[in-house]
């Protein structure tokens, strides 16, 4: 199968990758770029564990072909902290106990980050709506919502 050479930015650094046409962005991140923070839960757009920010907006990376990402700018959970400082969302997720097993957490963080990028003062409904595509089997969601509210307050 032919490979597609794509150039994209991941967490600020330029990457040149050769990918088969049937690879998803999720696979490329995990298997070519070793960014295993992005999780594969369902591989079918349902669970949100694979959420990353692509060109400024949250997407399910399992629903994007890698070959489509020519010129794209991607942010993964590995790109959230700056100069060793955790993002406010990360800090408050830890502080409020919005994390238990942690499998959903990278996706939750990126959905929440994309929300705060487009709406710095979200209502509780806005937060729940933005996170509706991120399933969590552990926390019962309330602590996640609180964490996002706290992060929004200091944003």
């Amino acid at each position: 199968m032919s490979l597609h050479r794509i150039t994209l930015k991941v967490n600020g650094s330029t990457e040149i990758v050769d990918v088969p046409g049937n690879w998803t962005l999720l696979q490329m991140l995990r298997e070519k770029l070793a960014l295993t923070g992005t999780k594969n839960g369902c591989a079918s757009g349902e669970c949100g564990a694979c959420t990353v920010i692509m060109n400024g907006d949250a997407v399910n990376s399992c629903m994007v072909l890698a070959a489509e990402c020519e010129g794209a700018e991607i942010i993964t959970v590995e790109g959230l902290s700056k100069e060793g400082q955790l993002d406010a969302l990360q800090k408050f997720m830890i502080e409020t106990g919005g994390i238990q097993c942690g499998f959903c957490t990278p996706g939750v963080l990126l959905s929440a980050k994309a929300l705060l990028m487009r709406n710095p003062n979200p209502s509780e409904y806005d937060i729940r709506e933005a996170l509706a595509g991120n399933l969590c089997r552990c926390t019962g969601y309330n602590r996640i919502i609180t964490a996002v509210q706290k992060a929004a307050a200091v944003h």
Partner: protein
Amino acid sequence: MRNAHPGLPELDYVKPGSLEEASKFLAAHAGESRPFLGGTDCIVRIRDGAWKPKYLVDVKGLEGTTGISFDPAKGLTIGAAVPMNKVAAHPDVQKHYPLLVEACNWVASYQLRSRATIVGNVCNASPAGDTIGAAICLDGVLNVFGPDGYRKEPLTTFFFGPGKTALKPGDIATSIFFPLPPKESAGKYLKLGRNRLGDLAIVGVTAFAYKDASVASGYRFRIALASVGPTPIRPTAAEEILAKSIDESAVEAAAQAAMDSCTPIDDTRGTARYRKLMIRNLTRQAVSAVLAQLKK
């Protein structure tokens, strides 16, 4: 969901440089290629093994597929590649076509709507497609580029069955056009899913109406029903009842007529009987909500 491995079966990604090139490729590889936009139907169907294309042809970015343009004299054109979140956030769409915004916001999750498109929803022709009812009620017309050049496909004659449409190999929908809605109009989409957000419609009812002095009731309705037949259903008998009268018993009779017009099936999300009853209830609610908006 058979297997959660992130890989897809063998296929190649094709990115043509022009509509002509894309159309020729699709026509030459009929049956083994598909155009794709957001890919949210394509990738799932391919992973499930329901579709086995050799080629996925990316038509995003081709001429006429990008951007939203509103002409106050004519109407709204939404490029095929514009994802639903962009449609729902567009000020002209919010102002003149709020029903479209409402319908988009019912689809799946935010992340999915960053990719999913209205044109993909329409071309996929699932009877459960959430934006299809609004697109029908708003008189949507697809602009299609095919082997013989450009043509228009009104949605009234577009759907033949699940996944079956008026499109042929080599056809690419480039945009969807909506004429200006009548002056005093209002719409409502009611979707019944197993949860509030992010499930496919067990049933869905779109109602749209405008004031029209030429009919006895003063209101002309368009109604579309989702997930209760092989194609979206337009219950014209219900619409005719409401053109005559909009009193309580007429609304009830219209809801009954909508229920009688549908032919649902039993599946994992609901039984046929339940679906029929819910169509009656939701039609009553949607029609009443639209009338309440118009009488304000």
